[in-house]
């Protein structure tokens, strides 16, 4: 087992098991809670792939999320009950890139870890329980439809992208979930749920050797098929789909987001650098410390709902900035001007150093959150980056590098605006 010291002087244990599963363990002394995530590098974007002997396969949207729901089914004792016995809260989530199964617990950690590894390895899918799940997921999708935040976000991605599956909700659509069958679920499960395409992270007051021992025993019998995964994404044009999109719904105040499509899709250290630099740039424009924010706020164009940030993984990269506003046109114009202005003036050393300190402080504070740590360790691993590299990469970013991003990353021709208006 490799041991790497964190910036907070805690030892992160890392190893790859014989079956190929990466395992990350961060013992946290003094904490009552233990938190474990067993994740699959398989998310909603992976709806098209190449299978050996079968060629290109395209499956309905929302399967990763559907599978996530279904894995909680068990032939005898429902999964929730297996965990409730130990006082564990078990949960799961699906994102664009990954599906994560997790629990947090105080006592009975070994027992719960065995349950976690067991249920993810043993799907129980029947025609009947799959049909029933459609009703539950449909309710979930409806619930999201009533959320203005979700709608304006989805609309923005639809405006930015022509074909990329990021256009579609992680859960899929009413139509696509209707097409999901037991066979399709099995097909995707067999392809993606294999140790080399997964990872286990445990954070809490645990013994790393014990965790590894449990993991090894609990996976002895697993009948998985090791095979190469070739994910396919449709060819996405550089241009945006449409520059402006608006919709009406029952809300009290209009909302407006300006989005940028970035065409640099990176992995590893370069991705980490891109993420940090872009977040510093958006921080300089949209954080509460920003004169740009103050100007917009004082003129009444934005309120405290305003946010701005970069979202990038090896499969996509976009930025968005916005919030509630009485005048979407004016806000769009002001934001574009602020970016153009920043491209002229650039950031100076004082600004960059202050924002670096701020980001480092946030990084250190996050070591209080076991959940955040475990999930960050996993998502960085799947992106080919390391969460522990953040301070060092942050330190290494120069003012010139950040300014280079300012000049190159924002192409006003590759931007779109999403607006929600009250009915």
């Amino acid at each position, binding site marked *: 087992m490799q041991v790497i010291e964190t910036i*907070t002087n805690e030892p992160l244990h890392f190893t790859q098991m014989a079956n190929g599963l990466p395992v990350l363990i961060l013992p*946290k*002394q*003094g*904490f*009552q*809670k233990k938190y474990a995530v067993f994740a699959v590098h398989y998310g909603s974007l992976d709806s098209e792939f190449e299978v050996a002997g079968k060629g290109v396969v395209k499956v309905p949207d929302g399967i990763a999320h559907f599978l996530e729901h279904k894995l909680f089914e068990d032939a005898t004792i*429902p999964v*929730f*009950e297996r965990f*409730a016995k*130990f*006082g*564990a*809260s*078990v949960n799961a989530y699906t994102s664009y890139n990954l599906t994560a199964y997790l629990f*947090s*617990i*105080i006592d009975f950690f070994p027992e719960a870890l065995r349950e976690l590894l067991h249920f993810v390895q043993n799907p129980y899918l029947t025609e009947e329980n799959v049909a*029933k799940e459609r*009703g*539950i997921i449909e*309710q*979930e999708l*409806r*619930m999201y*439809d*009533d959320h203005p935040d979700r709608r304006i976000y989805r609309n923005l991605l639809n405006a930015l992208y022509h074909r990329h599956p990021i256009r579609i909700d992680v859960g899929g659509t009413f139509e696509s979930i209707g097409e999901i069958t037991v066979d399709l679920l099995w097909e995707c499960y067999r392809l993606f749920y294999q140790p080399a395409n997964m990872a286990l992270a445990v954070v809490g007051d645990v013994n790393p050797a014990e965790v590894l021992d449990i993991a090894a025993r609990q996976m002895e019998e697993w009948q998985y098929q090791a095979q190469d995964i070739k994910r396919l994404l449709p060819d996405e044009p550089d241009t945006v789909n449409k520059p402006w999109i608006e919709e009406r*719904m*029952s*809300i*009290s*105040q209009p909302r407006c987001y300006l989005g940028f499509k970035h065409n640099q899709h990176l992995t590893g250290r370069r991705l980490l650098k891109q993420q940090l630099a872009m977040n510093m740039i958006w921080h300089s424009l949209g*954080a*509460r*410390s*920003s*004169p740009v*924010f*103050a100007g917009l*706020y*004082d003129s*009444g164009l934005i*309120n*405290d709902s305003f946010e701005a940030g970069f979202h990038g993984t090896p499969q996509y990269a976009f930025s968005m900035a916005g919030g*509630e506003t009485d005048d979407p046109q004016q806000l769009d114009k002001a934001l574009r001007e602020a970016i153009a202005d920043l491209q002229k003036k650039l950031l100076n050393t004082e600004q960059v150093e*202050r*924002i670096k*300190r*701020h*980001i480092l*402080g*946030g990084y*250190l*504070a996050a*070591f*209080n*959150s*076991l959940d955040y740590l475990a999930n960050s360790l996993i998502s960085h691993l799947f992106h080919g980056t390391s969460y522990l590299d953040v301070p060092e990469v942050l330190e290494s970013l120069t003012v010139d590098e950040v300014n280079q991003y300012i000049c190159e990353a924002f192409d006003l021709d590759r931007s779109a605006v999403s607006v929600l208006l009250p*009915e």
Partner: protein
Amino acid sequence: MDFVHYKIAEGVNLYLGETEKFTTLTVKVFIQDSLAPETVAANALIPSVLIQGTKSYPTRTALVQKMESLYGCAFWTDVSKIGERQILEFYFDAVSPRLIPNGKQVLKEGLMAFGELITDPLVEDGAFRRDYFHKEKRNLAKMVDGLINDKQAYAVYQAVKAMCKGEPYSLYKYGERDQIERLEPEEALRHYQELLRSNPIDVFAVGPNLEDLPELIGAWPWQRKSLRELPPVSVKEEVQEQEVFETQDVQQAILVMGYRTAQRYLSPDYYGLLVANGILGVFPHSKLFVNVREKASLAYYVDSSLEGSKGLLTVTAGIAPQSYGQAVEIVRRQVAELQDGVITDEELTRTKIGLISGIKKMLDNPAAVIDRNLIGIVHHELRSPQTVLESIAAVTKEQVRKAAQGLRLDTIYCLSGPKGEA
């Protein structure tokens, strides 16, 4: 974790919870006031005016830049409602001094700026700075209008409003538009100065290296006169048994069922009620989740929550509009089961384990370690985690049954789409 208590001034308490396990040092300040129609909007507005600038850092940009340069000291303000108290909340955290260069100095500067924000507000001619005040007034009014954007929160509040009509508890913690529009910066400053002089103030700190805090916080420019005792929560015995329907353009209907409870925080058998609520609707194994979601596939979410200060239990479910009757019936039946003592050993054990785990997990989160004491400071009875854990462990089925028998259904509220479209 047990807190060590210090008295800073008359009615100003400091509680220190020293621990090495966190990478931050977290401080929260709570100023209490009675929840009342005359002051609810002012109390909601004042914290957001204070954060716009201080005497030393007169703009929010300058203040936040200062905090950022101190390795990202975080600070925010809010207002909360516990029973019939409104609480002005001020939050601050700094990175543990041992993890950054000049840690002690960073902490000192951060705490000074934070303390000034609370105790020595930026004023002009006997009023809050007018431009900040009016801007925040507009923002607060819009935020209150915006409650309608969050259908679930909106539905729960409408249900509580219908249920507690005429009682202070029916007030929205951020005030209503007309209450906000009447606010003036002179009057609001006078009110805030009165709070600083006489209302109960509690300061909590959690983290490593707290040894300097009594001195640092004691050095804030406190202006104390005396301590004003606030009245206890009002209790209403009778229930209305009313149904309230509202229509809006929503995809999913939201059902809220409000019960009054016989026990509250200071009742000897309060923990019987806490466990009853857990068996009913807090966990995946709870009766509501199993029967409404899993067995009948009626809802995406369903849960119950307890307001232990006022004594309210509310069940909330997202349902298809046509399932209203069926959902109400299932909820009623689950409550009736609890009242008849139809509780398995498993339900009782798992609920206790769940509640106990929940409390232990709170101890791993600095803000939660602090916030769990709010109900205690309101009722002048702080309870250590150990006391609460032992009380929960000791609850019997009979106590759960008795607590459940004290539940009386007051209001059934449903928000759904226009008729014909459901």
